[in-house]
C-alpha cells in the first residue's frame, strides 16, 4: 500500500469520451453545436454540465469586449528533457495545435456587469488541465494583477493534477500558487473559485482550496485522490457520490453548488458584496 502513489489522477480523467462530444454521457441526448452553445453546454434533458472551453467560459462571464488577456505568450519549456512514449515537447505542440492555447490556463482583466475583476480560467482540453510551470506562473500573475488593480480574482478550475512531465517543478507549482494567493490576500483582495469537473490533485491541494468563496458546478468531481485510485489502493466500497461536488458540500468543503446558468448572476452578486465600501 505504501508504494502506490495517490496524488495524480490524470490516469482517471477524463472519463472515456462518449461516441461524440456533443452526446450527453449521462442521458445520451445529442445536441448540435449551436444548441449546446445556447444552453451554456448544459444538457437540457438531464442537466449534465458538459466540459466548457476556457474561451467559451470567458465569453460567458466577461462583459462583451471587456476581456484583456495577459501573459498569453507564456509557453512551457521542457526542463527535464522528458520523454515517455513520446517527447513532452511533442505533446505540448500537439495540445497547442488542437486547443489554440499556449497552455491549460487563460488569464486576463475583465468586467462583469460593469465591475472590474481578474479572470483565470483553466482548460481541461490542454493536457487534462494539468498544472505545470506555465499554469503556476499565470495563476500567480493573475493574483498580482488583481492585487495591483485592487480587484477580486475569479478562478475557474478544471484539472487532473500536476503536469508530471515537468517532474518536481510541477509539484512546486503547489507552493508557488499558494504563495501567490497569500500575497493576494495580504493585499486585501479576495479570490472566488469556481470548481468545475474535474478539480483534483495538485490544483485542489493548492490555490483552488484557498478561495474566500468556493463554488462548484453540479456533478463536478472534486477530489485530491480520484475514485479509481482510492478503490484500487484501499479496496473500500465507495459511496455513490464519492468525490462529487454534492458530497463536498455536505462535508463542509464548498460554499455552494451553482448550476451554470446561475453562475454569472452569482458572481455578479459576490462582486457587488466584495466591492462595497468598507
Amino acid at each position, binding site marked *: *500500500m*505504501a*508504494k*502506490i*502513489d*495517490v*496524488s*495524480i489522477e*490524470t*490516469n482517471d480523467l477524463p472519463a472515456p469520451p462518449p461516441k461524440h462530444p456533443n452526446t450527453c454521457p449521462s442521458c445520451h441526448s445529442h445536441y448540435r453545436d449551436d444548441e449546446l452553445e445556447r444552453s451554456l453546454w448544459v444538457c437540457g434533458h438531464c442537466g449534465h454540465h458538459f466540459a466548457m472551453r476556457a474561451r467559451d467560459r470567458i465569453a460567458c462571464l466577461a462583459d462583451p469586449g471587456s476581456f484583456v488577456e495577459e501573459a498569453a505568450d507564456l509557453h512551457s*519549456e521542457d*526542463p*527535464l528533457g*522528458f520523454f*515517455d*512514449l513520446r517527447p513532452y515537447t511533442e505533446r505540448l505542440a500537439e495540445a497547442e495545435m488542437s486547443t489554440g492555447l499556449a497552455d491549460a490556463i487563460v488569464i486576463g482583466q475583465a468586467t462583469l456587469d460593469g465591475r472590474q475583476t481578474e479572470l483565470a480560467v483553466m482548460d481541461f482540453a490542454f493536457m487534462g488541465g494539468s498544472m505545470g*510551470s*506555465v499554469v*503556476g*506562473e499565470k495563476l500567480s500573475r493573475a493574483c498580482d494583477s488583481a492585487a495591483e488593480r485592487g480587484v477580486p480574482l475569479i478562478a475557474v478550475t478544471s484539472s487532473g493534477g*500536476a503536469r*508530471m*512531465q*515537468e*517532474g*518536481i*517543478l*510541477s*509539484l*512546486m507549482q*503547489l*507552493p*508557488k500558487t*499558494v*504563495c*501567490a494567493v*497569500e500575497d493576494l490576500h495580504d493585499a486585501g483582495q479576495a479570490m472566488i473559485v469556481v470548481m468545475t469537473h474535474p478539480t483534483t*490533485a*495538485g490544483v*485542489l*491541494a*493548492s*490555490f*483552488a*482550496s484557498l478561495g474566500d468563496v468556493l463554488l462548484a458546478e453540479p456533478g463536478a468531481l*472534486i*477530489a*485530491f*485522490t480520484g475514485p479509481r*485510485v*482510492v478503490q484500487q*489502493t*484501499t479496496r*473500500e466500497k*465507495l*459511496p455513490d457520490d*464519492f*468525490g462529487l461536488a454534492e458530497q463536498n458540500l455536505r462535508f*463542509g*468543503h464548498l460554499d455552494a453548488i451553482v448550476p451554470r446558468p446561475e453562475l454569472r448572476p452569482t458572481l455578479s452578486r459576490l462582486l457587488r458584496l466584495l466591492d462595497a465600501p468598507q
Partner: protein
Amino acid sequence: MPPSEHELRLRERLSRLKSLPLLGGAKLSGELERLQRQLERIAAEPTDEEIWRSVQLARHEQRPYTLDYAERLLDDWFELHGDRGLADDGAMVIGLGKLGGRTVTLVGQQKGRDIQERTRRQFGMPYPEGYRKAIRAFELAERLRTPVVSLVDTPGAYPGVAAEQHGQGGAIARSQAAMARLTVPTVACVIGEGGSGGAVAIALADRVLMQENAIYSVISPEGCAAILWRDAGQAQKAAAAFKPDARHCLELGVIDGIVPEPEGGAHTDHDEAARLLGESLREALDELDGVPGEELRRRRRARFRSLGVYA
C-alpha cells in the same frame, strides 16, 4: 551539462574559504571539507542506476524516521498530540525540542518500523487530520516564536474515502498557506520519500534540504510508469525520466542543499545520519538568524514564486 548556478556558488564559496587564514580552526576546516564533499557529489550527473538506488534507499525499511532523528537531535524532546478537532494522526509527528540550545517546533511525517506501527501510522500517509495537526504546530511555533524544523517522509497523503470526505486537498493547501504566513525561520528536509502534495504540504520553508538519498517527486515512479508507460513495471525508467533524486532537485533550484548521509546510506548508521542532519539544520537556522520575520516571509514567498521554467 554546464555547471549549475548552485555549483558555481559553491565553488566560489569554497575558494573564498580556502584563501582565508584558518582562524576558525576546526569549524572552518570542517566547513571546507563539507563543501568539498558536496561539490564532488554535485559535479557528477547521477546515472539512471544511481537515481534508482536513491529510490530504493529512500524507502529502505531501516532508514531512520522522524522520531529517530527527534530523539537523537533534540534535547528535552516533547511530543505533542492531536489536531484539536477529530484525531491524533500517527503519520504526522509534532513536538518541541532544543536543537543546539535553540527551542524548535518539529513537524514531520512518520512511518512505522513493524507492521503494527505501520498500520497505526498508515505507512506515513497522513489524513487531513495530520495536516491540521501540522497547521496547529505551525501556529504554535508562530506564537512561541520558535523556528520550525520540518522533516518530510511520506509516499503521499492517504488515499481513502474518509480522507477525501474530511477534505484532504483543502488540508494540504491550508498547511502550505500556514507555512507561507509564518514569520519565524523555517527549515524543511526531505529525509526519505517526498511524495507529491502530501510532502510539499509541510515543505514550504525558508530553506529546503534533501538528504543525499532522499527522493522528492510529483508522483511515485510506479505511478508515473503506470500512467505514461501504462506499465507500473517501468518504474525504473520513469524515475530516470523525472529525476526525483537530490542532485537533480538541487540543479532545478527546488532545494537549497544536500545533507550528506553515512557511506552506504542513512540506514547503516542512524547516529551518524542524525549528526550530519543536525549539522545542516543548525547551519540553515544560523543563516536565518536575525532576519526580521516579515522579511523572512517575503523572501520565502519570493523563493517559491520563482520556481518553474517557461519562455
